[in-house]
């Protein structure tokens, strides 16, 4: 590793271990300083290849710095900073260390230039994410964490297996555009690994399963890193892969449908991550320069507004302890600042003009129109209406307005509001000055040409959103949340296993029975025969010898006992007789 290049991910991963050694203000300063340094390092970086290491005859690249990795690194580092500020009040070193490691690994994956480095960092991300779930320390979160681990270990193995296949085919592990390998097993394995991480259905049920079970502050980091790293990898490796268009559009609608049914505030938001990542996956599939710009811009904007939304729902959870919409309501009186900041995030995700989603999402939708994909265009627009319906109307209505639940709440700690405020400010800045973001997109010329604020686009969006709101108020009664769970593909490993286990158990029992029979017939006879012979040897030889030794010892000791009775007077007498005999010898023996 060259000295002039410092890996911002390593700064976070190594620096995190300083936190447990510090106390009070110093610790809080370090929590802010570490991600600030990482962000500074990212901002000062210029394109090039850094940090190459020889390993097993291959070149590991820790620092592939280009326009695409840079823009993702900015938002990952920025979100780490915002998330740490939001978590300043939490007195739990473990969570802070894990969160910083998570952010560092996301940066590591972003700058990785080869598949092995990418694999290593995505495994670190997986472990960190699981720990953030477990560190909520409830039975539900422990179970959800194990399910998360199960799915992502499978995904990690797909990535490793695919990488090995590509390695053996080409002799290289460099990670770039994979289209040269299209159709090969390695290609599909790596694609599946990224699709799992991007939570593409039917491989995405882990996301709404685990994120709502994570700790209040941990969930903020989770919303940002894993899925968006996967989007980055898809943009890098699989642009223009046709199947992604359909998967992405399906995903955008899938999240919307589940959000209608959902009662848990953070799970509703989790389903909308799936919906929003759908736009990005679709953009990658369309694969034109504008679509890839759109996927990148939308990932950037999404990380910030989703953080605001999760921070808002997290603040309500932190203050009231409630997570279900049917138990909330009327909080706008006591949490007006949280409501305001939440609504900024909600307007951003709904693509209201002057907010960040408006300038990012439209690039993907426009590129669907430009490439003449009418069905995709209609599906994505439908999902836009659904996004506003849930995140902008349903959730705030039932959380902050609706029937007054009588909850006596208050605003969350100041640092939480500051974290939310920073992310919300970023949503507005990007919405008002889109060129600030566009200047950093991978295809600069195309980005500069794109005009988000056209008459038609603004009026169309206002019409779509306004009349979605009308539909919401007309059908309000239909949307009342009820306590329920919704079946998702996690059914297969949560319930399906329970269905599969009894027959599997029976099959195993039958096999065990057969093995037992074979054992009895073949093994037992032989073993018993040998045993019998050994017993005879034991009885005749070993026992006889032992008995012989015993008998001899007994006879000898019987003889001795008659001689040596142990009585002092006899011994004295014998001694006296001996002395007399000796004197007699001495006197008369000459």
């Amino acid at each position, binding site marked *: 590793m060259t000295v002039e290049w410092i890996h911002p991910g390593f700064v976070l991963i190594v620096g995190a271990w300083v936190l447990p050694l510090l106390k009070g203000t110093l610790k809080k300063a370090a929590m802010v300083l570490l991600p600030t340094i990482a962000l500074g390092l990212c901002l000062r970086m210029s394109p090039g290849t850094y940090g190459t290491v020889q390993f097993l005859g291959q070149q590991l690249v820790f620092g592939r710095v280009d326009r695409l990795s840079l823009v993702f690194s900015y938002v990952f580092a920025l979100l780490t900073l915002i998330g740490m500020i939001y978590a300043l009040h939490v007195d739990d070193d473990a969570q802070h260390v894990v969160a910083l490691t998570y952010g560092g690994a996301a940066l590591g994956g972003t700058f990785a230039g080869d598949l092995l480095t990418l694999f290593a960092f995505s495994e670190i991300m997986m472990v960190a994410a699981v720990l953030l779930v477990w560190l909520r320390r409830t039975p539900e979160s422990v179970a959800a964490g194990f399910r998360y681990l199960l799915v992502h270990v499978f995904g990690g193995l797909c990535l490793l297996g695919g990488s090995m296949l590509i390695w053996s085919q080409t002799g290289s592990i460099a990670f770039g555009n994979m289209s040269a390998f299209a159709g090969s097993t390695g290609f599909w394995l790596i694609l599946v690994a990224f699709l799992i991480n991007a939570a593409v259905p039917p491989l995405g049920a882990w996301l709404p399963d685990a994120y709502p079970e994570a700790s209040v502050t941990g969930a903020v980091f989770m919303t940002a890193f894993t899925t968006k790293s996967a989007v980055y990898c898809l943009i890098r490796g699989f642009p223009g892969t046709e199947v992604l268009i359909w998967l992405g559009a399906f995903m955008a609608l899938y999240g919307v*449908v589940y959000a209608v049914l959902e009662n848990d505030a953070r799970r509703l938001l989790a389903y909308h991550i799936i919906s929003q990542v759908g736009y990005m996956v679709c953009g990658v599939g369309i694969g034109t320069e504008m679509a890839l710009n759109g996927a990148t811009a939308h990932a950037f904007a999404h990380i910030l507004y989703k953080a605001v939304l999760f921070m808002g729902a997290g603040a309500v959870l932190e203050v009231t302890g409630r997570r279900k919409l049917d138990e909330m309501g009327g909080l706008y009186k006591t949490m007006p600042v949280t409501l305001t900041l939440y609504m900024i995030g909600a307007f951003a995700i709904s693509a209201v003009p002057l907010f960040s989603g408006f300038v990012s999402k439209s690039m993907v939708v426009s590129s669907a129109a430009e490439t003449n994909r009418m069905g995709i265009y209609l599906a994505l627009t439908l999902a836009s209406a659904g996004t506003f319906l849930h995140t902008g109307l349903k959730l705030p209505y039932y959380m902050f307005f609706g029937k007054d639940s009588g909850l006596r709440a208050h605003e969350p700690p100041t640092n939480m509001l500051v974290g939310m405020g920073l992310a919300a400010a970023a949503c507005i800045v990007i919405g008002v000055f889109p060129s600030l973001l566009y200047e950093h997109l991978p295809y600069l010329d195309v980005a500069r040409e794109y005009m988000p604020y056209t*008459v038609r686009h603004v009026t169309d969006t206002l*019409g779509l959103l306004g009349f979605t*709101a*009308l539909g*919401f108020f007309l059908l309000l009664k239909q949307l009342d949340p009820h306590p329920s*769970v919704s079946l*998702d593909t996690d059914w297969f490993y949560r319930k399906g296993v329970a269905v599969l286990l009894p027959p599997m158990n029976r099959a195993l029992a039958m096999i065990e029975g057969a093995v037992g029979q074979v054992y009895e017939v073949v093994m037992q006879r032989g073993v018993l025969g040998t045993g019998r012979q050994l017993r005879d040897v034991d009885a005749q030889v070993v026992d006889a010898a032992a008995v012989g030794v015993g008998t001899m010892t007994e006879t000898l000791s019987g003889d001795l006992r008659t001689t040596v009775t142990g009585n002092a007077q006899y011994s004295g007498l014998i001694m006296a007789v001996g002395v007399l005999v000796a004197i007699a010898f001495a006197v008369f023996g000459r």
Partner: protein
Amino acid sequence: MSFLERQLEDPVRFKRLKIAFYVALSVIAVVEFALPRLMHAEKAEFWFEDLPAWESVYGLISCVVIIVGSKLIGKLWLMKREDYYDR
């Protein structure tokens, strides 16, 4: 009482808010229909985009389809009791 609370809890003011909402919707629909025709807006990609106030109509349809459709799927299939996975 805060500003928002006054607007929502006072029946007279709430009614005024409702009327303002409907007026705003009508204005949006008219503007969406008229403005691209008055100004030199960019060409539409699909034929249906030139229908009068297309996005407003589509927004309303989308909202209804999403709510009714999802509820239907949920009631018939996906929604289970909260302790479904614990039993």
